[in-house]
């Protein structure tokens, strides 16, 4: 009950933010500009993939930074005091932030993927099985990277004492961790999309678990 309420609230707060507007409109636009600037990426790198990768890499970093900065600011301005003196579990706050941003980014990724597929269809005919398959792999990879970035953003937000430290950790820590799901594609393991998602979920769970542990112990 409390979680759903906070999740809906956070979703409302994040989807109205400038960062989300940039992710939902700006990033697909950037992808289109990239396509117009370099239209001949060839069948091995369909535009669908370019678009999905752009959203997951830039979007993941932005989401991670946004989450960390939001949590640090809300901690220092004592926003959580009014929540923590009410009968709710602290993990509700942490997970509602994570899922609201993650859902916003999933929507941005799907929008970018659909735009990419539309452009591929328009410029090269109907998407082939190969293109569709690689698009789904791109989506799996992108969503896994975003999941890890968002979880890292939450952990950094909970643990960092200041915005500056938080942003530095996001850039030099969160970003590095979020590329781990690339490994199955690089190592050519069988069923890489599944392994990628599995790695993404596992790392995110660990990061979120640590974040919840720290937040539960924190004295405000």
């Amino acid at each position, binding site marked *: 009950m*409390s979680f759903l*309420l*906070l999740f809906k*609230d956070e979703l*409302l*707060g994040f989807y*109205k*933010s400038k960062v989300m507007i940039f992710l939902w409109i700006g990033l697909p636009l950037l992808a289109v500009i990239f396509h117009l600037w370099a239209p001949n990426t060839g069948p091995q790198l369909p535009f669908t993939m370019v678009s999905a990768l752009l959203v997951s890499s830039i979007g993941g970093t932005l989401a991670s930074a946004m989450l960390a900065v939001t949590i640090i600011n*809300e901690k220092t*301005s*004592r*926003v959580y*005091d*009014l*929540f*923590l*003196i*009410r*009968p*709710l579990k602290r993990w509700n706050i942490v997970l509602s932030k994570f899922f609201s941003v993650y859902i916003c980014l999933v929507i941005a990724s799907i929008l970018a993927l659909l735009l990419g597929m539309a452009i591929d269809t328009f410029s090269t005919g109907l998407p082939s099985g190969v293109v569709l398959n690689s698009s789904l792999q791109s989506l799996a990879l992108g969503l896994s990277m975003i999941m890890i970035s968002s979880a890292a953003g939450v952990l950094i937000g909970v643990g960092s004492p200041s915005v500056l430290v938080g942003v530095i950790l996001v850039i030099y820590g969160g970003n590095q961790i979020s590329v781990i799901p690339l490994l199955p594609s690089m190592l050519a393991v069988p069923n890489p999309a599944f392994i990628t998602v599995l790695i993404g979920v596992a790392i995110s769970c660990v990061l979120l678990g640590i974040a919840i542990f720290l937040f539960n112990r924190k*004295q*405000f």
Partner: protein
Amino acid sequence: MIKSKESKNLLVLEGVTKRFKDLLALDNVSFTLQEGDIFGYIGPNGAGKTTTIKIIVGLLRQGQGSVSIGGYPMPEKKDEVNKLLGYLPQQVSFQQWRTVNHALTTLGKLSGLKKNELETRIQEILSLLNLSEVRFKKIVELSGGTIQKVGLAQALLHHPKLLILDEPLGGLDPTSRYQVKEIVKDLSKNGTTIFFSSHILSDVQDVATTIGVLNQGHLMQIGTLDKLIAQFPRKNQIEIVLSKDSRKWTELQSMKQIQKIEEQAPNKILVHLQNNADVDEMIPQLTQKLITLGCQIRSIRPLSPNLDEVYLQYVKGGGSL
């Protein structure tokens, strides 16, 4: 406030101690508040007032000692306690994208209010605090004083049994301060216990039924204002207000045991007695003399230390529990 025998202990602190590394923020603080009490918690900056409050509401954990609210121990029964608590922090802050209505709706729901009850309650509270016109404004558009009042609104939403207010009157204009003090008195009449800290001693004196003086983590004294004042010797001064401005009072100078007479206003004088004079004996003598002189007396009273003076005595080390 006179308590009936049925009055219950709502808040009990026993030997609460809190240390931040080398700093002893609270040292063995104990007190009990009953239903309907208005407890004014005073002390200089850094005395430990906010630390005490944060321990009571569960934002900080006490190092030693125990806290119980409504019979529930903290922090073990935090969920039960949180249903009884209303809290206004010293620095109240909301997520800036929220409107007043949105913030109150979310916080009210988290406190367990049902949707239909919540709507009525938000209207009631906003109307009580003269905030109805800002209901759909964003928090970021409000002034500091208005945000403070929205903070009070969220603390009152769910009819808390224990209302904890950390410096509630600091950012408010005189009208709002008066209004909040009246609300506090009304809540107390209905059985709500109010714990509030303040630097504005006149406000504490206006509303508090019990006062606690905290200094450097030690609870120096706790009791009614009269009890606190009684700890200090009465001043050897008598204030006399006459109904007409007549200079005949100057003849009081000739009386024994009068050190000097200070004219504070055209019809108001302050008689300073000598150190060995007894105030209680002097009042009838002065009254008799003034009547003989043909003065019309409006009031005559011995001066006692006020809360400011009592506070300074405790903070400077003049008093102890």
